[in-house]
Protein backbone atom coordinates (compact mmCIF):
# COMPACT_ATOMS: atom_id res chain seq x y z
CA UNK A 1 0.00 0.00 0.00
CA UNK A 2 3.05 2.28 0.41
CA UNK A 3 1.15 4.51 2.82
CA UNK A 4 -1.51 5.73 0.44
CA UNK A 5 -4.80 6.56 2.14
CA UNK A 6 -6.70 6.18 -1.09
CA UNK A 7 -5.76 4.83 -4.48
CA UNK A 8 -7.58 4.59 -7.75
CA UNK A 9 -10.92 6.05 -6.72
CA UNK A 10 -12.63 7.37 -9.83
CA UNK A 11 -16.33 7.91 -9.78
CA UNK A 12 -19.11 10.40 -10.30
CA UNK A 13 -21.70 11.10 -7.68
CA UNK A 14 -24.76 12.60 -9.34
CA UNK A 15 -26.54 15.60 -7.90
CA UNK A 16 -29.78 14.82 -6.14
CA UNK A 17 -28.91 11.21 -5.54
CA UNK A 18 -28.63 9.33 -2.28
CA UNK A 19 -25.31 7.50 -2.40
CA UNK A 20 -24.27 5.07 0.30
CA UNK A 21 -20.65 4.07 0.91
CA UNK A 22 -19.91 0.77 2.62
CA UNK A 23 -16.74 -1.13 3.46
CA UNK A 24 -15.13 -2.52 6.53
CA UNK A 25 -13.39 -0.34 9.13
CA UNK A 26 -10.22 1.19 7.74
CA UNK A 27 -11.20 0.75 4.11
CA UNK A 28 -10.92 4.47 3.38
CA UNK A 29 -14.55 5.60 3.47
CA UNK A 30 -14.03 8.54 5.82
CA UNK A 31 -10.78 9.48 4.09
CA UNK A 32 -12.56 9.61 0.76
CA UNK A 33 -15.43 11.83 1.86
CA UNK A 34 -13.06 14.27 3.56
CA UNK A 35 -11.70 15.05 0.10
CA UNK A 36 -15.10 16.23 -1.08
CA UNK A 37 -14.98 19.38 1.06
CA UNK A 38 -11.19 19.71 0.98
CA UNK A 39 -10.53 18.79 4.61
CA UNK A 40 -7.99 16.57 2.90
CA UNK A 41 -6.38 17.29 -0.41
CA UNK A 42 -5.33 14.67 -2.95
CA UNK A 43 -1.63 14.06 -3.55
CA UNK A 44 -2.52 13.43 -7.16
CA UNK A 45 -5.72 13.67 -9.15
CA UNK A 46 -8.62 16.07 -8.89
CA UNK A 47 -12.01 16.33 -7.25
CA UNK A 48 -14.67 18.40 -8.92
CA UNK A 49 -17.62 19.61 -6.89
CA UNK A 50 -19.94 21.72 -9.03
CA UNK A 51 -17.67 24.48 -10.35
CA UNK A 52 -15.02 23.93 -7.65
CA UNK A 53 -11.88 22.00 -8.43
CA UNK A 54 -9.69 20.52 -5.73
CA UNK A 55 -6.16 19.62 -6.81
CA UNK A 56 -2.94 18.98 -4.88
CA UNK A 57 -2.13 22.67 -5.42
CA UNK A 58 -5.40 23.97 -4.00
CA UNK A 59 -4.77 26.79 -1.54
CA UNK A 60 -6.08 26.39 2.00
CA UNK A 61 -7.63 29.81 1.74
CA UNK A 62 -10.90 30.57 0.00
CA UNK A 63 -12.35 27.15 0.71
CA UNK A 64 -15.41 28.62 2.41
CA UNK A 65 -17.65 28.70 -0.69
CA UNK A 66 -16.92 25.00 -1.22
CA UNK A 67 -17.50 24.12 2.42
CA UNK A 68 -20.77 26.01 2.41
CA UNK A 69 -21.90 23.84 -0.48
CA UNK A 70 -20.77 20.60 1.12
CA UNK A 71 -22.05 20.09 4.65
CA UNK A 72 -20.56 17.32 6.71
CA UNK A 73 -21.97 15.41 9.67
CA UNK A 74 -19.11 13.57 11.35
CA UNK A 75 -19.27 10.45 13.47
CA UNK A 76 -20.62 11.41 16.88
CA UNK A 77 -21.20 15.01 15.76
CA UNK A 78 -22.41 15.94 19.26
CA UNK A 79 -18.73 16.39 20.15
CA UNK A 80 -18.60 19.55 18.02
CA UNK A 81 -21.14 21.46 20.14
CA UNK A 82 -19.64 24.33 22.13
CA UNK A 83 -21.97 27.33 22.41
CA UNK A 84 -23.97 28.09 25.53
CA UNK A 85 -27.33 27.78 23.82
CA UNK A 86 -28.63 25.43 21.15
CA UNK A 87 -29.67 28.40 19.04
CA UNK A 88 -26.18 29.94 18.99
CA UNK A 89 -24.65 26.60 18.14
CA UNK A 90 -26.92 26.09 15.16
CA UNK A 91 -26.25 29.69 14.05
CA UNK A 92 -22.47 29.18 14.21
CA UNK A 93 -22.09 27.54 10.79
CA UNK A 94 -24.43 29.88 8.91
CA UNK A 95 -22.71 32.94 10.40
CA UNK A 96 -19.29 31.64 9.35
CA UNK A 97 -20.65 31.29 5.83
CA UNK A 98 -21.84 34.89 5.68
CA UNK A 99 -25.48 34.66 6.79
CA UNK A 100 -26.69 37.76 8.60
CA UNK A 101 -27.70 37.46 12.27
CA UNK A 102 -31.39 37.46 11.29
CA UNK A 103 -30.93 34.89 8.53
CA UNK A 104 -28.96 32.61 10.84
CA UNK A 105 -31.63 32.94 13.52
CA UNK A 106 -34.34 32.07 11.03
CA UNK A 107 -32.31 29.06 9.88
CA UNK A 108 -31.93 27.88 13.49
CA UNK A 109 -35.66 28.20 14.13
CA UNK A 110 -36.43 26.25 10.99
CA UNK A 111 -33.84 23.53 11.49
CA UNK A 112 -34.67 22.75 15.11
CA UNK A 113 -38.12 21.72 13.83
CA UNK A 114 -36.66 19.77 10.91
CA UNK A 115 -34.61 17.60 13.27
CA UNK A 116 -37.68 16.94 15.39
CA UNK A 117 -37.03 19.12 18.42
CA UNK A 118 -39.37 21.94 19.44
CA UNK A 119 -38.50 25.66 19.51
CA UNK A 120 -38.35 25.43 23.32
CA UNK A 121 -34.96 23.74 22.89
CA UNK A 122 -33.36 26.80 21.29
CA UNK A 123 -32.66 28.56 24.58
CA UNK A 124 -31.32 25.47 26.37
CA UNK A 125 -27.67 24.65 26.81
CA UNK A 126 -26.64 21.85 24.45
CA UNK A 127 -24.82 20.20 27.35
CA UNK A 128 -28.09 19.73 29.25
CA UNK A 129 -29.56 17.57 26.48
CA UNK A 130 -29.50 13.80 26.12
CA UNK A 131 -27.04 12.19 23.71
CA UNK A 132 -29.71 11.68 21.04
CA UNK A 133 -30.92 15.28 21.32
CA UNK A 134 -27.35 16.58 21.11
CA UNK A 135 -26.92 14.56 17.93
CA UNK A 136 -30.01 16.23 16.46
CA UNK A 137 -28.76 19.70 17.40
CA UNK A 138 -25.41 18.97 15.75
CA UNK A 139 -27.17 17.79 12.59
CA UNK A 140 -29.34 20.92 12.63
CA UNK A 141 -26.13 22.95 12.89
CA UNK A 142 -24.85 21.42 9.66
CA UNK A 143 -28.16 21.61 7.77
CA UNK A 144 -28.64 25.26 8.80
CA UNK A 145 -25.98 26.46 6.35
CA UNK A 146 -28.21 25.08 3.59
CA UNK A 147 -25.55 22.92 1.91
CA UNK A 148 -26.26 21.46 -1.51
CA UNK A 149 -24.49 18.23 -0.63
CA UNK A 150 -24.70 16.58 2.76
CA UNK A 151 -22.06 14.05 3.77
CA UNK A 152 -23.02 11.76 6.62
CA UNK A 153 -20.44 9.63 8.42
CA UNK A 154 -22.42 6.98 10.32
CA UNK A 155 -24.92 9.53 11.56
CA UNK A 156 -27.04 7.01 13.45
CA UNK A 157 -24.28 5.12 15.31
CA UNK A 158 -25.37 4.50 18.88
CA UNK A 159 -28.96 5.71 18.46
CA UNK A 160 -32.05 3.69 19.40
CA UNK A 161 -34.07 2.14 16.53
CA UNK A 162 -36.80 4.79 16.59
CA UNK A 163 -34.31 7.66 16.65
CA UNK A 164 -32.35 5.98 13.90
CA UNK A 165 -35.36 5.74 11.60
CA UNK A 166 -36.36 9.35 12.30
CA UNK A 167 -32.89 10.62 11.48
CA UNK A 168 -32.66 8.57 8.29
CA UNK A 169 -36.13 9.71 7.18
CA UNK A 170 -35.01 13.27 7.80
CA UNK A 171 -32.09 12.85 5.39
CA UNK A 172 -34.33 11.20 2.81
CA UNK A 173 -36.65 14.23 3.07
CA UNK A 174 -33.64 16.50 2.48
CA UNK A 175 -32.88 14.51 -0.67
CA UNK A 176 -36.44 14.99 -1.88
CA UNK A 177 -35.88 18.73 -1.49
CA UNK A 178 -33.11 18.39 -4.06
CA UNK A 179 -30.02 17.83 -1.90
CA UNK A 180 -27.32 15.33 -2.71
CA UNK A 181 -26.77 12.87 0.13
CA UNK A 182 -23.63 10.81 0.68
CA UNK A 183 -23.93 8.33 3.54
CA UNK A 184 -21.22 6.21 5.12
CA UNK A 185 -22.80 3.29 6.91
CA UNK A 186 -22.39 -0.26 8.14
CA UNK A 187 -26.14 -0.84 8.18
CA UNK A 188 -27.22 -2.65 5.03
CA UNK A 189 -30.90 -2.10 5.82
CA UNK A 190 -30.33 1.64 5.68
CA UNK A 191 -28.60 1.14 2.34
CA UNK A 192 -31.52 -0.89 0.99
CA UNK A 193 -34.17 1.46 2.34
CA UNK A 194 -32.68 4.81 1.45
CA UNK A 195 -29.87 4.69 -1.11
CA UNK A 196 -30.08 5.06 -4.89
CA UNK A 197 -26.44 4.17 -5.46
CA UNK A 198 -24.02 2.08 -3.48
CA UNK A 199 -20.23 2.34 -3.44
CA UNK A 200 -18.08 -0.42 -1.97
CA UNK A 201 -14.63 0.41 -0.62
CA UNK A 202 -11.92 -2.08 0.19
CA UNK A 203 -8.28 -1.47 1.13
CA UNK A 204 -8.39 2.19 0.06
CA UNK A 205 -9.87 1.32 -3.32
CA UNK A 206 -13.30 1.69 -4.84
CA UNK A 207 -14.21 -1.90 -5.71
CA UNK A 208 -17.91 -1.69 -6.49
CA UNK A 209 -20.38 0.90 -7.73
CA UNK A 210 -23.99 0.33 -8.68
CA UNK A 211 -27.54 0.35 -7.44
CA UNK A 212 -28.06 -1.50 -4.15
CA UNK A 213 -29.99 -4.14 -6.12
CA UNK A 214 -27.00 -4.76 -8.40
CA UNK A 215 -24.45 -4.84 -5.61
CA UNK A 216 -26.46 -7.10 -3.32
CA UNK A 217 -26.80 -9.61 -6.16
CA UNK A 218 -23.05 -9.73 -6.70
CA UNK A 219 -22.23 -12.49 -4.24
CA UNK A 220 -18.56 -12.63 -5.07
CA UNK A 221 -18.11 -8.90 -4.39
CA UNK A 222 -20.02 -9.10 -1.11
CA UNK A 223 -18.05 -12.05 0.16
CA UNK A 224 -14.67 -10.60 -0.79
CA UNK A 225 -15.41 -7.37 1.05
CA UNK A 226 -17.13 -8.79 4.12
CA UNK A 227 -20.43 -7.12 3.32
CA UNK A 228 -23.61 -8.70 4.60
CA UNK A 229 -27.04 -8.61 2.97
CA UNK A 230 -29.98 -6.60 4.31
CA UNK A 231 -32.23 -8.53 6.70
CA UNK A 232 -35.00 -8.86 4.08
CA UNK A 233 -32.60 -10.40 1.58
CA UNK A 234 -31.27 -12.87 4.17
CA UNK A 235 -34.85 -13.84 5.02
CA UNK A 236 -35.70 -14.22 1.34
CA UNK A 237 -32.71 -16.50 0.75
CA UNK A 238 -33.88 -18.76 3.57
CA UNK A 239 -37.38 -18.82 2.11
CA UNK A 240 -35.90 -19.66 -1.28
CA UNK A 241 -34.30 -22.74 0.28
CA UNK A 242 -37.81 -23.83 1.31
CA UNK A 243 -39.16 -23.49 -2.22
CA UNK A 244 -40.17 -19.87 -2.60
CA UNK A 245 -39.10 -18.17 -5.79
CA UNK A 246 -38.37 -14.47 -6.12
CA UNK A 247 -38.40 -12.50 -9.37
CA UNK A 248 -35.58 -10.37 -7.97
CA UNK A 249 -33.78 -10.29 -4.65
CA UNK A 250 -36.02 -8.35 -2.24
CA UNK A 251 -33.81 -5.97 -0.28
CA UNK A 252 -36.44 -4.01 1.63
CA UNK A 253 -39.29 -5.23 3.81
CA UNK A 254 -41.93 -3.89 1.42
CA UNK A 255 -40.39 -5.67 -1.56
CA UNK A 256 -40.19 -8.85 0.50
CA UNK A 257 -43.79 -8.74 1.74
CA UNK A 258 -45.11 -7.93 -1.72
CA UNK A 259 -43.46 -11.02 -3.21
CA UNK A 260 -44.48 -13.31 -0.34
CA UNK A 261 -48.09 -12.12 -0.50
CA UNK A 262 -48.29 -12.99 -4.17
CA UNK A 263 -47.00 -16.51 -3.63
CA UNK A 264 -49.19 -17.25 -0.62
CA UNK A 265 -52.30 -16.05 -2.47
CA UNK A 266 -51.19 -17.93 -5.55
CA UNK A 267 -51.43 -21.30 -3.76
Amino acid at each position, binding site marked *: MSGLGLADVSCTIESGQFTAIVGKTGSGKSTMVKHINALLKPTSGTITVGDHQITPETDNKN*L*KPLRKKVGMV*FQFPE*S*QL*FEDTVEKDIM*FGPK*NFGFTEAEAKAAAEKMIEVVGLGPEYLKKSPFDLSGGQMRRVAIAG*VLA*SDPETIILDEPTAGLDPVGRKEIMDLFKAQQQKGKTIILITHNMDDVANYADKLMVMHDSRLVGLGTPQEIFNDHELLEKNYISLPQSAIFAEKLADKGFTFSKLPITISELTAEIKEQIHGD
Partner: protein
Amino acid sequence: MDKLIIGRYLPGDSLIYRLDPRLKFLITFYFIGIVFLANNVASYAFLLVFVLFAVYVSKVNLLFFIKGLRPMFWLILFTVALQAFFTPSNDPIWHWAFLTLSKDGLVIAAYIFMRFVLIIFISTLLTLTTTPIEISDSIESILKPLKVVKFPVTQVALMLSIALRFVPLLIDETTKIMDAQRARGVDFGEGGLIKRIKAFVPILIPLFVSSFSIAYDLAIAMESRGYKDGEGRSKYRVLNWSKRDNWTIVFMVLVTAILLLLRSYR
Protein backbone atom coordinates in the same frame (compact mmCIF):
# COMPACT_ATOMS: atom_id res chain seq x y z
CA MET B 1 0.70 17.94 15.53
CA ASP B 2 3.34 15.19 15.54
CA LYS B 3 5.90 17.62 16.94
CA LEU B 4 4.00 17.91 20.21
CA ILE B 5 4.64 14.36 21.32
CA ILE B 6 6.47 14.34 24.61
CA GLY B 7 9.54 12.16 24.90
CA ARG B 8 10.15 10.92 21.40
CA TYR B 9 11.10 7.38 22.23
CA LEU B 10 13.03 5.64 19.49
CA PRO B 11 12.67 1.86 19.60
CA GLY B 12 16.04 0.15 19.67
CA ASP B 13 18.29 -2.17 21.60
CA SER B 14 21.69 -1.46 23.13
CA LEU B 15 23.35 -1.30 26.51
CA ILE B 16 21.81 2.11 27.18
CA TYR B 17 18.33 0.80 26.35
CA ARG B 18 18.78 -2.12 28.74
CA LEU B 19 19.94 -0.04 31.72
CA ASP B 20 17.46 0.28 34.54
CA PRO B 21 15.34 3.35 33.69
CA ARG B 22 15.66 4.59 37.28
CA LEU B 23 19.41 4.64 36.90
CA LYS B 24 19.22 6.41 33.53
CA PHE B 25 16.87 8.97 35.02
CA LEU B 26 19.11 9.66 38.00
CA ILE B 27 22.33 9.69 35.96
CA THR B 28 20.82 12.21 33.58
CA PHE B 29 20.16 14.60 36.45
CA TYR B 30 23.48 13.82 38.07
CA PHE B 31 25.26 14.58 34.81
CA ILE B 32 23.40 17.86 34.40
CA GLY B 33 24.69 18.68 37.88
CA ILE B 34 28.32 17.86 37.21
CA VAL B 35 28.32 19.77 33.92
CA PHE B 36 28.51 22.87 36.11
CA LEU B 37 31.70 21.58 37.72
CA ALA B 38 33.61 21.84 34.45
CA ASN B 39 35.72 24.98 34.40
CA ASN B 40 38.39 24.63 31.71
CA VAL B 41 38.91 23.40 28.19
CA ALA B 42 40.13 19.99 29.34
CA SER B 43 37.12 19.29 31.58
CA TYR B 44 34.60 20.39 28.94
CA ALA B 45 36.38 18.30 26.33
CA PHE B 46 36.29 15.33 28.69
CA LEU B 47 32.53 15.71 29.28
CA LEU B 48 31.96 16.00 25.54
CA VAL B 49 33.91 12.80 24.99
CA PHE B 50 31.81 11.13 27.69
CA VAL B 51 28.53 12.22 26.07
CA LEU B 52 29.68 11.21 22.59
CA PHE B 53 30.77 7.87 24.03
CA ALA B 54 27.31 7.39 25.58
CA VAL B 55 25.71 8.27 22.23
CA TYR B 56 28.00 5.77 20.51
CA VAL B 57 27.12 3.02 23.00
CA SER B 58 23.39 3.75 22.60
CA LYS B 59 23.67 3.02 18.85
CA VAL B 60 21.33 5.94 18.16
CA ASN B 61 22.20 8.06 15.14
CA LEU B 62 23.93 11.29 16.16
CA LEU B 63 21.60 13.21 13.83
CA PHE B 64 18.71 12.72 16.27
CA PHE B 65 20.71 14.58 18.90
CA ILE B 66 21.58 17.43 16.59
CA LYS B 67 17.89 17.69 15.73
CA GLY B 68 17.21 17.90 19.45
CA LEU B 69 19.19 21.17 19.51
CA ARG B 70 16.98 22.79 16.92
CA PRO B 71 14.02 23.84 19.12
CA MET B 72 16.50 25.46 21.53
CA PHE B 73 18.39 27.26 18.78
CA TRP B 74 17.19 30.80 19.56
CA LEU B 75 17.65 30.40 23.30
CA ILE B 76 21.21 29.13 22.78
CA LEU B 77 22.02 31.91 20.34
CA PHE B 78 20.61 34.56 22.66
CA THR B 79 22.48 33.30 25.74
CA VAL B 80 25.74 32.83 23.89
CA ALA B 81 25.49 36.31 22.33
CA LEU B 82 24.70 37.81 25.71
CA GLN B 83 27.81 36.23 27.23
CA ALA B 84 30.00 37.15 24.28
CA PHE B 85 29.03 40.82 24.09
CA PHE B 86 28.35 41.72 27.69
CA THR B 87 31.33 40.22 29.53
CA PRO B 88 33.29 43.19 30.84
CA SER B 89 36.99 43.11 30.04
CA ASN B 90 40.05 45.35 30.20
CA ASP B 91 41.37 43.95 26.98
CA PRO B 92 38.57 44.17 24.39
CA ILE B 93 39.07 43.00 20.84
CA TRP B 94 36.17 45.09 19.65
CA HIS B 95 34.11 47.73 21.36
CA TRP B 96 30.98 49.67 20.40
CA ALA B 97 28.72 51.60 22.78
CA PHE B 98 27.78 49.05 25.46
CA LEU B 99 28.92 46.02 23.46
CA THR B 100 32.32 44.54 24.21
CA LEU B 101 33.92 41.59 22.51
CA SER B 102 36.88 40.11 24.32
CA LYS B 103 38.82 36.91 24.57
CA ASP B 104 37.40 36.19 28.04
CA GLY B 105 33.88 36.82 26.82
CA LEU B 106 34.31 34.49 23.86
CA VAL B 107 35.69 31.75 26.08
CA ILE B 108 32.76 32.05 28.51
CA ALA B 109 30.35 32.06 25.58
CA ALA B 110 31.96 28.90 24.25
CA TYR B 111 31.60 27.26 27.69
CA ILE B 112 27.92 28.22 27.86
CA PHE B 113 27.41 26.80 24.41
CA MET B 114 29.08 23.56 25.49
CA ARG B 115 26.82 23.34 28.56
CA PHE B 116 23.74 23.62 26.37
CA VAL B 117 24.99 20.96 24.00
CA LEU B 118 25.93 18.58 26.81
CA ILE B 119 22.68 18.98 28.72
CA ILE B 120 20.50 18.70 25.62
CA PHE B 121 22.40 15.66 24.35
CA ILE B 122 22.17 13.77 27.62
CA SER B 123 18.48 14.50 28.15
CA THR B 124 17.75 13.59 24.53
CA LEU B 125 19.58 10.34 25.18
CA LEU B 126 17.24 9.66 28.10
CA THR B 127 14.02 10.36 26.18
CA LEU B 128 15.15 8.55 23.04
CA THR B 129 16.08 5.35 24.84
CA THR B 130 13.45 5.27 27.58
CA THR B 131 9.71 4.95 26.99
CA PRO B 132 7.57 7.57 28.73
CA ILE B 133 5.95 4.82 30.77
CA GLU B 134 9.37 3.66 32.00
CA ILE B 135 10.14 7.21 33.04
CA SER B 136 6.91 7.49 34.98
CA ASP B 137 7.59 4.11 36.63
CA SER B 138 11.04 5.37 37.59
CA ILE B 139 9.63 8.52 39.10
CA GLU B 140 7.25 6.42 41.16
CA SER B 141 10.09 4.20 42.34
CA ILE B 142 12.38 7.11 43.12
CA LEU B 143 9.68 9.01 45.02
CA LYS B 144 8.76 5.97 47.13
CA PRO B 145 10.65 7.16 50.24
CA LEU B 146 8.32 10.17 50.31
CA LYS B 147 5.51 7.84 51.38
CA VAL B 148 6.84 8.29 54.91
CA VAL B 149 5.68 11.89 54.84
CA LYS B 150 2.29 10.81 53.38
CA PHE B 151 3.09 12.02 49.88
CA PRO B 152 0.65 10.22 47.49
CA VAL B 153 3.33 8.54 45.39
CA THR B 154 1.17 5.91 43.67
CA GLN B 155 -1.49 8.46 42.78
CA VAL B 156 1.07 10.84 41.33
CA ALA B 157 2.60 8.01 39.30
CA LEU B 158 -0.85 6.96 38.07
CA MET B 159 -1.63 10.55 37.08
CA LEU B 160 1.63 10.70 35.16
CA SER B 161 1.02 7.51 33.23
CA ILE B 162 -2.60 8.41 32.46
CA ALA B 163 -1.51 11.84 31.28
CA LEU B 164 1.06 10.23 28.97
CA ARG B 165 -1.52 7.75 27.70
CA PHE B 166 -3.94 10.59 26.94
CA VAL B 167 -1.58 12.61 24.78
CA PRO B 168 -2.16 10.67 21.53
CA LEU B 169 -5.86 10.31 22.38
CA LEU B 170 -6.31 14.06 22.80
CA ILE B 171 -4.36 14.75 19.63
CA ASP B 172 -6.79 12.52 17.71
CA GLU B 173 -9.73 14.21 19.36
CA THR B 174 -8.37 17.67 18.53
CA THR B 175 -7.89 16.76 14.86
CA LYS B 176 -11.42 15.42 14.71
CA ILE B 177 -12.99 18.49 16.30
CA MET B 178 -10.90 20.82 14.11
CA ASP B 179 -12.17 19.01 11.03
CA ALA B 180 -15.75 19.26 12.24
CA GLN B 181 -15.45 23.00 12.87
CA ARG B 182 -13.64 23.57 9.58
CA ALA B 183 -16.56 21.89 7.86
CA ARG B 184 -18.77 24.44 9.63
CA GLY B 185 -16.77 27.25 8.10
CA VAL B 186 -14.11 28.05 10.70
CA ASP B 187 -10.89 29.19 9.10
CA PHE B 188 -7.91 28.68 11.37
CA GLY B 189 -5.04 30.98 10.60
CA GLU B 190 -7.12 33.69 8.97
CA GLY B 191 -7.64 37.24 10.13
CA GLY B 192 -6.01 39.16 12.94
CA LEU B 193 -4.66 37.88 16.24
CA ILE B 194 -7.96 38.30 18.13
CA LYS B 195 -9.86 36.50 15.40
CA ARG B 196 -7.35 33.67 15.40
CA ILE B 197 -7.57 33.24 19.16
CA LYS B 198 -11.36 33.31 18.95
CA ALA B 199 -11.25 30.55 16.35
CA PHE B 200 -9.88 28.24 19.03
CA VAL B 201 -12.87 28.55 21.34
CA PRO B 202 -14.90 26.08 19.24
CA ILE B 203 -12.06 23.59 19.67
CA LEU B 204 -11.18 24.11 23.31
CA ILE B 205 -14.70 23.78 24.70
CA PRO B 206 -15.53 20.48 22.98
CA LEU B 207 -12.05 19.23 23.89
CA PHE B 208 -12.67 20.09 27.54
CA VAL B 209 -16.05 18.42 27.51
CA SER B 210 -14.74 15.27 25.90
CA SER B 211 -11.69 15.10 28.21
CA PHE B 212 -14.02 15.12 31.19
CA SER B 213 -16.20 12.42 29.74
CA ILE B 214 -13.19 10.27 28.80
CA ALA B 215 -11.80 10.73 32.31
CA TYR B 216 -15.14 9.78 33.82
CA ASP B 217 -15.41 6.68 31.63
CA LEU B 218 -11.85 5.71 32.46
CA ALA B 219 -12.49 6.03 36.19
CA ILE B 220 -15.55 3.78 35.93
CA ALA B 221 -13.69 1.26 33.77
CA MET B 222 -10.84 1.13 36.26
CA GLU B 223 -13.09 0.72 39.27
CA SER B 224 -15.17 -1.96 37.57
CA ARG B 225 -11.97 -3.89 37.01
CA GLY B 226 -11.22 -3.62 40.70
CA TYR B 227 -8.70 -0.78 40.76
CA LYS B 228 -7.86 0.37 44.24
CA ASP B 229 -4.83 2.45 44.99
CA GLY B 230 -2.58 2.08 47.95
CA GLU B 231 -0.65 -0.82 49.39
CA GLY B 232 -0.25 -4.26 47.92
CA ARG B 233 -0.66 -3.54 44.22
CA SER B 234 1.59 -5.73 42.12
CA LYS B 235 3.17 -4.32 38.97
CA TYR B 236 2.89 -5.41 35.37
CA ARG B 237 6.20 -3.82 34.41
CA VAL B 238 8.83 -4.75 36.95
CA LEU B 239 12.02 -2.70 37.06
CA ASN B 240 15.07 -4.93 37.39
CA TRP B 241 18.33 -3.74 38.81
CA SER B 242 21.17 -5.81 37.35
CA LYS B 243 24.93 -6.08 37.38
CA ARG B 244 25.41 -3.74 34.46
CA ASP B 245 23.65 -1.03 36.46
CA ASN B 246 26.21 -1.48 39.25
CA TRP B 247 29.03 -1.24 36.71
CA THR B 248 27.49 1.91 35.30
CA ILE B 249 27.58 3.48 38.75
CA VAL B 250 31.25 2.54 39.11
CA PHE B 251 31.87 4.06 35.70
CA MET B 252 30.09 7.28 36.72
CA VAL B 253 32.20 7.50 39.88
CA LEU B 254 35.31 7.23 37.70
CA VAL B 255 33.99 9.91 35.36
CA THR B 256 33.40 12.21 38.32
CA ALA B 257 36.87 11.55 39.70
CA ILE B 258 38.54 12.33 36.38
CA LEU B 259 36.42 15.45 36.04
CA LEU B 260 37.50 16.67 39.47
CA LEU B 261 41.11 15.96 38.58
CA LEU B 262 40.92 17.88 35.32
CA ARG B 263 39.16 20.70 37.11
CA SER B 264 42.08 21.30 39.41
CA TYR B 265 44.48 21.93 36.48
CA ARG B 266 44.32 25.57 35.74
